Structure formats: structure tokens, C-alpha cells
């Protein structure tokens, strides 16, 4: 990978570290990026990480009004994108109202091009001297650096194995370069997910265990619950039922302590499938029913549909065909409402059950 790329990813990681430290305090960080698409990609990375407000500045008055008048209580960082030219109005505003950037008591990240920075140093020197820090990124609108930032900015989506392999390579590279723990946990999670989808279960396990360790180091209980759950899926898929039950159980316990109802419902469901697989039908019914109840309360339509469909399979296996048919019909309706591709599988299950009921 080209040297510029290495520098840029490390710089973005350092910006994240500085913003993390500056949360709840004032700070003024300038960031030089020339290509607008590259800038926007970095902004997306930061928006994914921090509750942000992005302002594309045209006039000085916008800066004053935002910093003086707007309710920024829900905003953790302010991101400013400067125009391509430093007008007299903007230079004056930056110089004369520079204190406002610190008065808001949240970090400000100002994106500007190289030529505008040079102009700022000459024509708004007080603003320049008032900065907390500044970064210069060299990136372009294409190439591996861009792809790496794209990976940091967007959730995993893929169409084929090539997509997964490409994304895996970029994430392995990011893992080497990124020091920020939250971003590292995200990268490990994605690598675990990719390895799982590629059928590389040993690698997936290594990544997910590392992710769990990072979450534990950060004291991130939600992250720990998520890693334990994913490790549970892996153990279940590799046939280690006891380990899967232990991992799901640990995840469930954390979610219950956090009052995370949605998470609890999602742990109860696979615990139900484990009970079903080991022949403990009553326990499986209890767990599905508990999961379903919470999902209905939360209005989690997709979750409800999945648990209904799973319950239908259980009842079919137990010979309760009418009950199974009723469950799968309800599941199919919900999948159709959601426009889910799983509706097709539910239709097949429903047709099979209808045939069985007819043949009885």
C-alpha cells in the first residue's frame, strides 16, 4: 500500500483519539483535505462514531449563529466544512469570533483545503494561532486509502465472495494501523463476521475473542454482550452445544443487568433453539414464548416473525400440525409485510404444512 495511505489512516485514527479526549470540552481542530469526496468519507467515519452536526459554511454569519444561538445539547462534535475560497467576511469572522469555538464546550473539527489553510495562516492568523491542533491529509478520491476509510465509514455489505475477501484485506490492514479501541472493536467484529461468512470458523473465533477482550478493557458491557452472543452462534454452528449455552447465557445476563430488552429477546431465541436441539421441548417452548412476548411489546416485527417461524418448526416436529400451520401463517404474513426475502421460505413451510394437515 502506498505510503500516503498509511499516513492518512493513522492521522484519522489520531483525530478520533483527540476528539474522544476533547468530548465535553472546547477544542478547535483544523483538518486539511483537498478532495471533497475524500473529506465526505472522513466526515461519515466521524458521524458514525460521534453524534455530530455538520455545517457546510458559506458565510461567516452561519458560524456565529450556530455557535451562539443553536441548541447543541445533543451534539458531541461540530464538523465545519469550509468553502473553496476564504472570503473577507469569513476571514473576519474566524478571527473576530474565534473564542466562540471554545465557548460551545464541544470539539470543533474544521475541514478546509490546502489553499484555504494557507490563506487562513496569512489572513486569519489569530484564528490559526487559536487552534488546538491541525492535521493534513493527502488522500485522493480513489485508491486503497479511500477504500479503507470507506470501510470504516460503512457497515458490512457484500454481494459475493470477492467482496468479502476485499473487505477482509482492508480490515486486516486497518487492524494494524488503527489504535482507537472502539474502532478496533468494530474492525474485529467485522473481521469475525467476514470469516464466519467465508466459513473460516477458527479465524472468526480468534477475531471475536479479541473483540471481547477489547470490550472488556473498555468496560463496554454492550460490546461484551454482543461478542459473547456472536461467539455463542459460532459454538452452536460448530456443534459445541454446552459452550454455546454458556456463552448465550453470559450474554443474556449482561443484557438483563443493562435492562436491554431487545438484546434479551435476541438471546432467548437461540437458547430456545439449543433446548429444541437437545430435546428439551418444554424449555424451548418457554424460551420462544418469552422471546416472542418481549418482541411483541417492543414492536420488533422481524424478531416476532423469526420466533413464530421457529416455533412452527418445533410444533411440526412434535406433530402439532394445526398449531404449526397457524404459527407459520402468522410468520409469513409478517415477513411479507416487511418485504423480507424470508417470506419465500415461510411460504414453502406453510404449503408443506397445509399438505400435511390435508393428508392427515
Amino acid at each position: 500500500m502506498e505510503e500516503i495511505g498509511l499516513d492518512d489512516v493513522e492521522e484519522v485514527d489520531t483525530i478520533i483519539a483527540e476528539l474522544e479526549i476533547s468530548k465535553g470540552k472546547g477544542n478547535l481542530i483544523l483538518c486539511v483535505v483537498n478532495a471533497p469526496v475524500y473529506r465526505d468519507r472522513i466526515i461519515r467515519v466521524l458521524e458514525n462514531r460521534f453524534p455530530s452536526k455538520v455545517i457546510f459554511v458559506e458565510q461567516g454569519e452561519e458560524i456565529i449563529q450556530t455557535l451562539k444561538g443553536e441548541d447543541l445539547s445533543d451534539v458531541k462534535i461540530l464538523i465545519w466544512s469550509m468553502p473553496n475560497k476564504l472570503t473577507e467576511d469569513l476571514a473576519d469572522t474566524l478571527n473576530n469570533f474565534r473564542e466562540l469555538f471554545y465557548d460551545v464546550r464541544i470539539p470543533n473539527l474544521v475541514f478546509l483545503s490546502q489553499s484555504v489553510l494557507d490563506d487562513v495562516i496569512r489572513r486569519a492568523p489569530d484564528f490559526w494561532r487559536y487552534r488546538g491542533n491541525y492535521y493534513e491529509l493527502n488522500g485522493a478520491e480513489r485508491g486503497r486509502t479511500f477504500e479503507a476509510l470507506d470501510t470504516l465509514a460503512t457497515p458490512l455489505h457484500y454481494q459475493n465472495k470477492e467482496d468479502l475477501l476485499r473487505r477482509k484485506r482492508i480490515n486486516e490492514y486497518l487492524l494494524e494501523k488503527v489504535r482507537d479501541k472502539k474502532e478496533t472493536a468494530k474492525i474485529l467484529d467485522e473481521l469475525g463476521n467476514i470469516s464466519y461468512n467465508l466459513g473460516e470458523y477458527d479465524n472468526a473465533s480468534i477475531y471475536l475473542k479479541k473483540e471481547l477482550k477489547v470490550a472488556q478493557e473498555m468496560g463496554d458491557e454492550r460490546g461484551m454482550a454482543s461478542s459473547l452472543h456472536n461467539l455463542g452462534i459460532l459454538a452452536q454452528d460448530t456443534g459445541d452445544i454446552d459452550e454455546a449455552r454458556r456463552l448465550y447465557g453470559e450474554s443474556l445476563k449482561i443484557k438483563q443487568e443493562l435492562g436491554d430488552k431487545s438484546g434479551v429477546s435476541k438471546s432467548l431465541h437461540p437458547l430456545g433453539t439449543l433446548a429444541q436441539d437437545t430435546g428439551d421441548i418444554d424449555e424451548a417452548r418457554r424460551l420462544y414464548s418469552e422471546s416472542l412476548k418481549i418482541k411483541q411489546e417492543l414492536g420488533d416485527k422481524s424478531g416476532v416473525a423469526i420466533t413464530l417461524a421457529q416455533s412452527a418448526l418445533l410444533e411440526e416436529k412434535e406433530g402439532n400440525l394445526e398449531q404449526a400451520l397457524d404459527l407459520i401463517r402468522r410468520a409469513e404474513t409478517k415477513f411479507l409485510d416487511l418485504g423480507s426475502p424470508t417470506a419465500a421460505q415461510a411460504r414453502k413451510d406453510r404449503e408443506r404444512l397445509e399438505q400435511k394437515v390435508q393428508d392427515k
Partner: protein
Amino acid sequence: MSLAKVILLKLGREAKTREYVRKELDTQISDLIQRLNWLIIEVEDWTKKCVVVIVDDLDKLTRGQQAEDFFYKNYELLLQPNCFVIYTFPIPLTFTPYYQNVKPAFDDDVILPQLPVRGIDGGENDANLNFYREVVNRRIEPGLIDAGVLNEAILSTGKLHEFVSVMKDASIKAYRNEREKIAKEDVESALEKLRRTYDRTLTEAHKKRLLEIHESKEARDTGNDDATSRELLFSLTAVEYEDENGRWCDVDPLLLPLVEKWKRSD
């Protein structure tokens, strides 16, 4: 609205405001001065003390013309309040010919130059070095900085804001790299970044003048049309110092490593 506020509305943020302020100034300035002076009398009567007004932040008048208009063309206005007034004043304006004309109208002028970390002969100024060290020692435990690193940062910057900025940048780098202490490479990387930026921003004329300033230890423009030295002093790429041996100018210490390079390309 106070006099200072009206003046400091400073010719505005945008054309419309500027025009409005100018009109307002024209029509209301006498009234404002009068009201201010009444206020001063009233405050002094009540408190039995003299009023001292400090008008800070006039360093924000960064454009040469704007600053000259304020201090040199309208200076009589600044003298009208009937109390002690201290106006902060951008140092580069002392290098224009108008300065000597206007100076006698004021009771005094006090110049506060940068604290030199080296004397005019290049020898280190221990007292000033200690001042800079103390700035950091009050904020960062000395054990968190590798030996010798602080000195390098001070001697390479020699200006408070730049020194603080470099130390901040270096500490973020050390934190990000999970180092236990701020290392030499953290400071060097922060210094190099800043140096690279200034080197890129300076024009050939600026570099030529900086070389002259470095040789002569003086910063003078050649005439009214020449603002090169003033621009350098505004941007603090040239710095004025003073110690017990006198006053002199030199290149920003950060840029000293570039002097040889500039000489070669001159």
C-alpha cells in the same frame, strides 16, 4: 452600547453591517463619547477612584489597512475618553512610518515582545527557558516527558502559542501510540509538520526577507509600498525580541532549520 463596542464592531463582518456601523459611527460617535465621559465622571464620583479602561483584542485587527485606519487615521477618537485607557496594539504597526507621528499623542507606549529563548548571540536564556518549562510543568507531570524533549520543543518554537500547540500535538501522538511518555519523535513530528506548513505558505519574497532579517537582526520595510516585513511580523514567522542587551528581530526559531535550504535556493 459602549464606545469600545462600537469601535470594535470593527467595520463589520459583512458589507451591509459595515455600512450600517459606519453610518451609526458618524452620527452617534460624539454622543457616545459624551455619554461615556458622563459615565466615567459618575463612576469616579461614586467610587472615589480613577477609571482605567483596558481595550483588549485589538490584535484582532489583522489586516494592515484596517489596523492602520483604526490607530493612525482615527487615533484622536481613541484619546477622547476622559480616563486612563490601555489599547492593545499589533506590534507590526510599530514598523510603519506613521508610528512615530502618532506616538507623541499618547502618554506612553509599551512594547511587550516575545520572550527570547536565546540571546542575540545565540546563547540560551535560562530564565526564559525556565518560564516555558514551568508552563508545561504546571500542566504535565515532568515524568511523562522524555529527557531533553521539552528543551527541544522550547528552543525550536520560542513562542508560547506555538510551543503549547507543539506539546499538545506531541502528547496526542504519544497517547494514540500508547506510549508512556512523550517521546522525541512525537515532538519532532509535530515540529516538522508545522515547519512544512510554514515553508509552503511563505512566498519567495518572504523567504528572501527572512534571510535578510536573520542576517541583520532587523525587520524593516523598504517603503510605504513594502509590507513584507510587516506581514512576516503579523504571521510571527519573524519575531521581535528584547532582553537586557536590547531589541532585535530574527526568524521564528521553528524555521531556522530551513534557513540553510533557503540560502541554497536564493
